């Protein structure tokens, strides 16, 4: 593929930003700021910008915390390969944040169950569940509170779209797309 073809594909998909490579906290914050300033330059509404930034952050930190390919560089500091794009869906006229990583096949049922449940909730249900989980701390682990997908859903105008594609006996490819 030529870069021209790549550029054409990006344009066709309405992609404003794309990244594929190793994600870590410094990269996340650098990219996050870049996207933020791009959106500000496009004179986008502050609240939409904040929502995109929030969904992007949750997706990147999920990849860093849960990807099967994650590495611990220093104590509790991770990096992991991942892919992320931010784009504008021309038909829906909505922005989206779409990302992917390799997941452990054992995590499939846990993740599916979690997202499927979240997708059954309306706005007030989401708020209630979020507050319950935050209070109880049931989802808490060393790096998070188990609130990431809920946080994305709160900022999204549609159900969370996800897809899991099996690779082999141990690995699957997980992707999630969130419309703002």
């Amino acid at each position: 593929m030529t870069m021209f073809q790549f550029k054409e594909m990006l344009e066709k998909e309405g992609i404003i930003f794309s990244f594929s490579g190793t994600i870590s906290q410094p990269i996340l914050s650098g990219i996050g700021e870049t996207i933020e300033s791009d959106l500000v330059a496009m004179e986008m509404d502050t609240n939409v910008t904040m929502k995109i930034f929030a969904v992007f952050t949750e997706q990147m930190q999920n990849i860093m915390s849960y990807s099967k390919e994650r590495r611990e560089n220093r104590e509790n500091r991770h990096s992991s390969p991942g892919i992320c794009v931010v784009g504008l869906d021309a038909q829906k006229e909505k922005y989206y944040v779409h990302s992917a990583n390799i997941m452990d096949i054992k995590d499939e049922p846990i993740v599916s169950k979690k997202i499927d449940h979240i997708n059954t909730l309306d706005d007030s249900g989401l708020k209630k569940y979020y507050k319950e989980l935050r209070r109880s701390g049931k989802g808490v682990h060393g790096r998070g509170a188990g609130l990431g997908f809920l946080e994305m859903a709160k900022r999204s105008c549609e159900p969370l779209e996800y897809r899991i594609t099996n690779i082999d006996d141990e690995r699957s490819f997980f992707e999630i797309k969130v419309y703002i």
Partner: protein
Amino acid sequence: MNNLTIKASKYTPAIELNAETNTLTISGKSYPENTFDFYAPVITWLQEYFSSDTVEKTTLNMDIIYFNSSSSKLFFDLFDLLEEAQDGGKEITVNWYYDEENESAEEAGEDFKEDFEEMDFNIIKK
């Protein structure tokens, strides 16, 4: 006791816990990957601070532009710690500041206020 000062980074807020003025300030963005590790010194400092008999009226000023979901949990636990101190007889005020254009910061403040009804929790437009 010593004051605790932590400078802001790109993804962590500026923190100033002052035992002389009884003022606690957290301002900026909060989205570290290791939220609980990052805030551990803050929690430890507060536990020690509230264990002292001399502490009376304390004000927490929160001016957070953006925070991630793990910070949301951490802030909940922080307010919980303050509420416990209040139950133990301390006088506490929380001021949650937000920018007019930042709806999510305002909503987040309202959500916390609902969870801590017994506290003097003020939502303040900057």
